């Protein structure tokens, strides 16, 4: 079962032991910094909150968008969020966290986009202040009070999800789907978008259940579905899963995404840093003091100049 913390209870963050033991940085972090986030140690992949999106079942009514606005008290202009405006393409913004667009005119399919809530999120690993962090239950959340607005999360996100409040001079925020975590999920309610969906195109549950459901549907109708669950393996797996009757790349899904979790790409280098510091420090130290003795001793020849 999903471990849902009681209302008001602080989420705790597990710090992976391997990362902590890596050298100096880890030692200092262990010495008294409780806020280390789990940037690398994966969540229990089968256990996280998850949503399955069944693309052929979506009629493009955009009720999920309005549900999202309601659930999160967002103030994006609502005039285009109706079915009759499907011709006009909408892009997510800092206060419009999910959009449904008709993707590919000839296919007439509608695709809902929002944060994929990666199991090993790149945004969390790059954020220098842990403004973005991952809860044990899976959702990747944003804490405005910590954010410095560097926008590295936007660059790093393989799905280009985080959005910036460009027209705010001093207090711009990063906006992205919060999975309705604090106001709904942790109270035992489904996300606002799922609750609003009238056709069953969105299904909410545990990730292993949703993955099983996805594969069962694909397996039951091989004549309809393409044999791929988007999000099962992309960038190490995502909480949101998609199945489709049209090849995913025709619907604007990213292709060529590595299966390897992205944070490891940086961590491969970052984890070397304590070692590099130690090696360079001793090397330069030895060099500097030895050469200094040589240049200062009277018997040694003067500078090679």
């Amino acid at each position, binding site marked *: 079962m999903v471990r849902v913390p009681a209302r008001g209870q602080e989420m705790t963050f597990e710090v992976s032991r391997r*990362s902590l033991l890596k050298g100096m*940085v*880890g030692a200092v*972090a262990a010495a008294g*910094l409780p*806020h280390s*986030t789990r*940037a*690398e140690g994966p969540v229990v992949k089968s256990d996280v909150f998850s949503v399955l999106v069944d693309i052929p079942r979506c009629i493009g009514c955009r009720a999920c968008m309005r549900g999202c606005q309601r659930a999160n008290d967002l103030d994006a202009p609502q005039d285009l969020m109706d079915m009759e405006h499907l011709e006009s393409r909408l892009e*997510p*913004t800092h206060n419009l966290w999910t959009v449904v667009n008709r993707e590919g005119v000839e296919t007439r399919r509608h695709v809902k986009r929002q944060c994929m809530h990666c199991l090993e999120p*790149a945004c969390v*690993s*790059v*954020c*220098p*202040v*842990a403004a973005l962090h991952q809860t044990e239950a899976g959702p990747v959340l944003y804490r405005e009070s*910590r*954010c*410095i*607005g*560097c*926008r*590295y999360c*936007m*660059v*790093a996100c*393989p799905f280009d999800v985080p959005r*910036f409040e*460009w*027209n*705010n*001079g*001093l207090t*711009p925020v990063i906006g992205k789907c919060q999975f309705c975590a604090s106001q709904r999920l942790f109270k035992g309610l489904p996300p606002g978008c799922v609750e609003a969906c009238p056709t069953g195109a969105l299904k909410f549950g545990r990730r292993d259940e949703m993955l099983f459901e996805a594969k069962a549907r694909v397996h039951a109708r091989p004549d309809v579905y393409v044999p791929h669950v988007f999000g099962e393996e992309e960038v190490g797996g995502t909480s949101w899963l998609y199945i489709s009757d049209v090849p995913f790349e025709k619907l604007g899904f*990213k292709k*060529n*995404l*590595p299966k390897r979790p992205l*944070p490891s*790409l*940086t961590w*491969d*280098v*970052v984890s070397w840093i304590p070692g*590099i*510091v130690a090696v*360079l420090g001793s090397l*330069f*130290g030895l*060099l*500097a*003091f030895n*050469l200094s003795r*040589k*240049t200062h001793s009277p018997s040694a020849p003067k*500078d*090679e*100049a």
Partner: protein
Amino acid sequence: MIGWLFLTAVAGVLGWLAVSYGLGRPPRHGLSWAAGATGALWAVTAVVLAIRFTRGMGVMTHMTDVNPWGIWVGFLQAGVALSGGGFVMAATVHIFHIKRFEPILRPVVLLAFLGYVFVALTLFIEVGRPYNLWHPLAMWQHHSIMFEVAWCVTLYLTVLAVEFSPAVLERLGYGRAVEALHRAAIPIVILGVILSTLHQSSMGTMFLIVPQKIHPLWSSTLLPVFFLVSSVAVGLCVTVVASFYAARIFGKTLDRWLLADLARAASMVLFLYAALRLVDVSARNAWGRFTDPGWLGGVFLLEVGGGALLPAFLLSRRAVRDRPRWTVAACLPVLAGVVLNRLTVSWLAMVPYTGPGYFPHWMEVSVSFALLTGVAVVFGVAVRTLPVYPAADSPSATILPVRG
């Protein structure tokens, strides 16, 4: 449009002055021309900054959610690289004890310090919530390379200030403090060199998280190495160019043999850098994407060929190294090449992924330009008021009179 014309005019005036000073034929009232152009630039930029902090970046930049990093990040990266002279020369003098370079160490350290000030000021404008910039120092997230960058910038700025402080203390007559600092020079320099090594390379590490967004000619796991090596090369070249111009504009003495030695070292590092880049592209079988799109292939040629290979060859010739003016002319493409490289990794090489949606607003360029001229003016003031350069009668090898 008017904004771009204005910026072009300012750049034209300053560029013309730079060329004429470089050729040794400074125009009459040259410095008042420079002051006029710079003053106008600063006045306009003050208005631009007021817009930035009231109405937000959306109004005065062309950054969007698709292109969240604009030219400021590229210039910031270039600023870090061009400050590379500081750690290269500090290591040469205080770690490898090649003491004949000591006379030019102070101006180079000052230059690096001002380069990092440029970087820090750019950051204050570039991030959305600058008043939170201290957060990485308190709220640790040691998996983030940006966290490491924040620490490196802060610590290294401090180290550079300490390294330069003897010039200020001498001027103020605190002889004993200078002596104490001199005794602590080696540990301070070692700390600075380590911080620089980390920081220069982490500027490249920042882009390892997006291999699928960067064009294959640049998307390499060796990015940290490339950024480090190119910063050493460009650091040497900046030292050459800056020493030359300081001599021309401020009437300081110029040791041409030091310049020639620097140029030879730069040539070797540049050959190494170019070889690494070419081997890397070959090893990843990325040549097939050279003309996809063609203009990026052109950028690669300009950057690696024009900015590294060609200058490496020129600087390896004795005929070039023996003439300060030619040496400077061969070093300038290196500066341009590294700036282009940083702009490419942070912007141009991502255009095939993001689409051609971004071209900097003139106000973005104006901010960077104003910061750059500001830093240059502070350098000039420091050279005139502080003992940055050794006194003209100091015994620093063969002195070349550069006037005329």
